[in-house]
């Protein structure tokens, strides 16, 4: 599904990613953990195609296609979805309008017929329920005035409607209380599928109690310094990131 090889990324003059190698298979859930400044969010943004990042080396293949050569909207249409850490407020753009425009852009790219307003509304209402979202949210401007929890739920709603092949969740747990976290996690778990892969980017182990990953990778100083099963997250929680820091240093100094 996703193959990252030797990815090096610079932001302005600063090297953030120093050679990432990662393979996410079909239907797998991978967690990327790491302290602040380790490059987690950079990785998520580069995969989604945000501007301002310079890829200096390496490549990313998504279902065999060169992902980095695609515009953000082309990546979305190919099936990549990024749930933002800070979903953007867009005053004046109605949430329903936005969701429908997005879904139809994707459907068009897949050669499917565009949905009309009635069919779309039926579809979106069915997706709202498990997220415990109120229908009135559909009539509001995109994320405008939403609470932190509402914003994250809105991201998961978009994901549920757009049905991506690869979903990247950037610190989706940040700023959520435990109830909201459970709802969001349930929403994500409901989307788990043998054909859909997830990349969970998170600082805390907490999220992984609710969305249990197949693999956990630890990112430090722009590199994956440790990979393992879900038990790795527990170890991290016990020992803290200082433990990986040492490992990171060792790797950096190794020739």
């Amino acid at each position, binding site marked *: 599904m996703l193959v990252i090889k030797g990815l090096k990324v610079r932001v302005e003059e600063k090297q953030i990613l120093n050679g990432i190698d990662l393979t996410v298979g079909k239907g797998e859930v991978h967690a990327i953990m790491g302290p602040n400044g380790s490059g987690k969010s950079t990785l998520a943004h580069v995969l*989604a*195609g*945000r*501007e301002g990042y310079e890829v200096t080396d390496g490549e990313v293949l998504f279902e065999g296609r060169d992902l980095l050569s695609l*515009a*953000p*909207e082309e*990546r*979305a*249409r190919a099936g990549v*979805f*990024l749930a*933002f850490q800070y*979903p*953007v407020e*867009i*005053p*004046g*753009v109605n949430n329903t309008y*936005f969701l429908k*425009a*997005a*879904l139809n*852009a*994707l459907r068009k*790219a897949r050669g499917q017929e565009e949905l009309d307003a009635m069919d779309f509304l039926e579809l979106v209402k069915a997706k709202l329920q498990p997220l415990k979202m109120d229908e009135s949210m559909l009539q509001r*401007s995109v994320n405008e005035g939403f609470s932190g929890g509402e914003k994250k739920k809105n991201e998961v709603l*978009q994901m549920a409607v*757009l049905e991506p092949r690869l979903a990247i969740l950037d610190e989706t747990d940040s700023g959520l209380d435990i109830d909201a976290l459970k709802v969001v996690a349930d929403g994500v778990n409901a989307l788990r599928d043998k054909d859909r892969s997830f990349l969970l980017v998170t600082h805390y182990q907490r999220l992984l109690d609710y969305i249990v990953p197949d693999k956990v990778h630890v990112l430090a100083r722009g590199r994956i310094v440790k990979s393992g099963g879900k038990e790795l997250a527990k170890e991290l929680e016990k020992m803290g990131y200082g433990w990986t820091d040492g490992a990171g240093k060792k790797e950096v100094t190794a020739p």
Partner: protein
Amino acid sequence: MNALEAKNTYFSQFSDWEKTALTKDPFWIRETREKALAYFQETGFPTSRDETWKYTNLDPLFQIPFALNGDRISKEAVLPELNSLGFETAKANVMVFVNGHFSKALSGVSEPSPKVKIRSLIESLSDGPLKKHFSHILPFENRPFVALNYAYFTDGLFLHVPAGERLEKPLHVVYVSTNSGQPTQSHVRNLLLMEEDARASVIEHYWGNNLKPYFTNTVTKVSLDKGAVLDHAKIQQESPLSFHIGTLAARQNEGSRLVSRVFSIGGALGRSEVETVLVERKAECVLDGLYLARGHQQLDHRTFIDHLSPSCVSEETYKGVADGESVGIFDGRILVRENAQKTDARQSNKNLELSNKARIYSKPQLQIYANDVKCTHGSATGQLDEEALFYLQSRGLGREEAKRTLVYAFAGEMVERVADGYLKAPLQTMVKKWMEEKMGGKP
């Protein structure tokens, strides 16, 4: 031509014109024309040294000799054209002027209320209320285009809504400019008299359907008696090579309410002025404006709200979008005089620059001489939000569609505020069409 040569041309055309055009003018009208012309001859056109014309380049206007006496008929039927723009003309009173002359044949006025007068101004010169208000002319001082209009006006709308009466259907007045030969000028003068508790909804729609230059110069005078309510919209949709200069000047008595909405989209140079004097207490005005400029257009807006009396409310919101190498101008002045205690005045101007070469000049001015007032104003000019664009793109919207979505979210607010369905739907279409033409593709 430079400004001085242009002035002399506009002055000297009068003597030939009056021989043929003004034979039926009553003496008192002729007198104002001559006074106005004399004033214009004395002051001439404004220059960039005039504070209120600082950012506007009038030179292109001076380069073209515009002839008086444009065609009086339009070869095209206007009503079907309006319908194609989305106006359901069957639901309105439609009055059509062609190059400044009333065209009864093209109009469709069927106002159910018998006491309301919807007339050609020039055919109503013997009307009592008209005569009374006509003599209270706007001072021309610092208004050379108003003086020019007073000298050369050919016709315009005369609306009289007597006390307690209401115009049941919106009045859609279309000023069409056509020219089959040389570039023409037309000067339109409108008078709207709203007596006590009268109500009306009026659309002044300036519209050109030809690709040659022309010059439209308009003055609309509005009088609102106690409790009267006027919902006024001006759509400036002149053709691309044209020049449009227009002033709306209102006086409001106690508890009256004026809603003025200006939509500027057409013309090479478009200037719209709106000024209202809140003469008596508890008068209210809402001044809304939207300008969408592109190419080399100059779209210029000047407003003046004069809080003369206590407890009046003014709420002003102007928004502009400038693309290409266009210029968008907002110059909004609010004066709260010493006597105007308990004034509530709000002003906001927001602009979006879509290109590096587009320029926005925003000049909000609040002058307060009373001490117990609530006044706020704000002005902001920015570019499209890259974060929001990326967010929309990351959900599959193409970059151009994402831009259109954000521009409509910004500009559309001014259209969404329109309550009247007759006007709202065509305006939505107009703004969307502008974005499609500008940014390609359908939203």
